């Protein structure tokens, strides 16, 4: 590689300049307030973890991990998600005290970009994990809280698509018989390749009825009626339990009063391979990728030596900020321009203003080259220049 220019950053790394920073912080604060109102406690975990533990458990593709060596030669990763680190903390420390556990985080995660720009390699996620809670009411709580958090951030229009990986798995297995065959079809769904899915189904040695069932499966999207349609497709009770779970979930989401935000999509599969049951993605207009996702992962904690079911979600703060639209212009601070002989006056005036909660900059005027250009960036300018009376507003 050629020597980087001084202004360059590694691929996918971004600076956050004041206006976007304010938008992000304000959205983050509103969201974390809402999360706290639901009784979740925030925690932090280190940015660096062991490759062999978190790296392996995280379900992010190996080539997307940033890897480095520590001084003892261990391979480390920059955490690619927060769910695995929180599972580690929960399994090794917190779970021994109480179950269920409600934890929250707001942290940067790292995923290397392979190809090109347009996607950040470091981004902030705000999310929650509800651990040791197998009930459907925990699944409903996730989705209800997700909706409340997005509303608190100021997002009014969004759509949460809910699927169930357990249903998909049982349905495929009941028709295809083997996990190997089921995984081929799952891969087509994961790659969003419906054409390939249909062609593959046509090529399988199945009855035309079974082929038709698999093809109809790809249109199981939409309102709650989708669940009824899905029930019509299953045989021998396979997948019925999962559908009953979704039905119960739909009832509870109505009790939370958020049914207008949700729809069902039984074809939904996630790049997060650790999901075991309900899973969901949330979309908002103008942003070409999901702004958040989540689901139930009942087997992940086992990897860290504690058997507990869990569910959670994560919101991409950068994409959310994009969905919120116009960044809000932060109001500019005030400014005092002083000449050296009146510095004390300036300091005292500034202290008074700050005690009133105002933001104010103090600047020695003798080093300002272009006073007009400088003062333009402030909401109000106070001059303490030359001999004479008190500060005069410009």
């Amino acid at each position, binding site marked *: 590689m050629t020597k980087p220019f001084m202004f360059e950053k590694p691929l996918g790394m971004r600076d956050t300049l004041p206006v976007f920073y304010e938008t992000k912080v304000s959205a983050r604060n509103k969201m974390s307030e809402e999360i706290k109102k639901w009784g979740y406690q925030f925690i932090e975990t280190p940015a660096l973890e062991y490759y062999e533990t978190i790296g392996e458990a995280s379900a992010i593709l190996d080539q997307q991990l940033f890897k480095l060596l520590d001084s003892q030669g261990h391979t480390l990763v920059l955490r690619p998600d927060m769910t695995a680190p929180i599972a580690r903390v929960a399994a090794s420390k917190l779970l021994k005290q109480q179950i269920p556990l409600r934890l929250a985080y707001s942290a940067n995660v790292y995923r290397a970009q392979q190809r090109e720009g*347009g996607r950040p390699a470091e981004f902030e996620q705000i999310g929650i994990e509800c651990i040791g809670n197998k009930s459907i009411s925990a699944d409903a709580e996730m989705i209800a809280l997700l909706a409340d958090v997005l509303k608190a951030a100021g997002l009014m229009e969004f*759509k949460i*698509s809910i699927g169930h990986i357990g249903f998909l798995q049982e349905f495929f297995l009941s028709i295809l018989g083997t996990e190997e065959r089921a995984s081929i079809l799952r891969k087509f769904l994961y*790659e*969003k*390749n*419906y*054409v*390939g899915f249909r*062609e593959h189904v046509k090529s399988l040695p199945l009855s035309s009825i079974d082929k038709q069932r698999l093809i109809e499966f790809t249109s199981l*999207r*939409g309102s709650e009626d989708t669940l009824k349609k899905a029930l019509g497709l299953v045989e021998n009770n396979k997948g019925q339990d999962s559908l009953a779970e979704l039905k119960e979930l739909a009832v509870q989401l109505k009790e939370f009063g958020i049914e207008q935000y949700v*729809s069902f*999509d039984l074809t939904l599969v996630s790049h997060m391979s650790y999901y075991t049951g309900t899973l969901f*993605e949330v*979309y*908002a*207009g*103008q*942003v*070409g*990728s*999901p702004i958040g996702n989540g689901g139930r992962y009942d087997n992940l904690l086992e990897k860290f030596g504690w058997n507990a079911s869990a569910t959670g979600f994560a919101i991409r703060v950068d994409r959310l900020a994009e969905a919120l639209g116009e960044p809000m212009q932060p109001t500019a601070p005030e400014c005092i321009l002083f000449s050296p002989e009146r510095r004390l006056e300036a300091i005292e005036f500034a202290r008074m203003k700050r005690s009133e909660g105002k933001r104010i900059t103090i600047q020695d005027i003798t080093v300002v080259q272009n006073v007009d250009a400088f003062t333009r960036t402030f909401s109000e300018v106070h001059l303490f220049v030359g001999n004479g009376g008190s500060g005069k507003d410009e």
Partner: protein
Amino acid sequence: MNNSFLTIAMPKGRIFEEAAELLRGAGFRLPPEFDDSRKLILDVEEENLRFILAKPMDVVTYVEHGVADIGIAGKDVMLEEERDVYELLDLKISACYLAVAGLPGTKISDIAPKIASKYPNVASSYFREQGEQVEIIKLNGSIELAPLIGLAERIVDIVSTGQTLKENGLVEYAKIADVTSRLVANPVSYRLKEARITEIVDRLAEIIG
């Protein structure tokens, strides 16, 4: 929701005419100047549609980033680019296939054989699956030239009639994959504008048969 504003990315060049004909066949009222316009953005207000005209290789990129909701793209491009888009429908137009070709009666060398292609990823993964480690040379056109003047031993390229290969004295060694144009959709658009996109898919599916 059923008439939400939709942006469609269309491929310029070879595929364009067939794609436009297909859309007209499905009942879309495309403007008459559509075919020979040099404009890159065309709005059809009465249909609540916007068309953007892109290089065929770039259609999936526009759709993946969400600046176009749906698009018409060759399967060759999708295999090469592996973009995160929904492949909803095989439009069965612009049929051709990806193939390996070279000079007749030649073998590829055991050590670092050179393969020239416009599709480096497709070529690389095909030879890897065959158990061959090859070196890929990326070219942007007139791929047939490469074996003729000794740049590469094999080429991986699109074959439609085989005429170009024949005229240049090349033969086909293996077929990699069939290629037709596909209707692709951005994952978020597919969820948020589902009704409209599904309606378009149904209309197109009906005339494709």
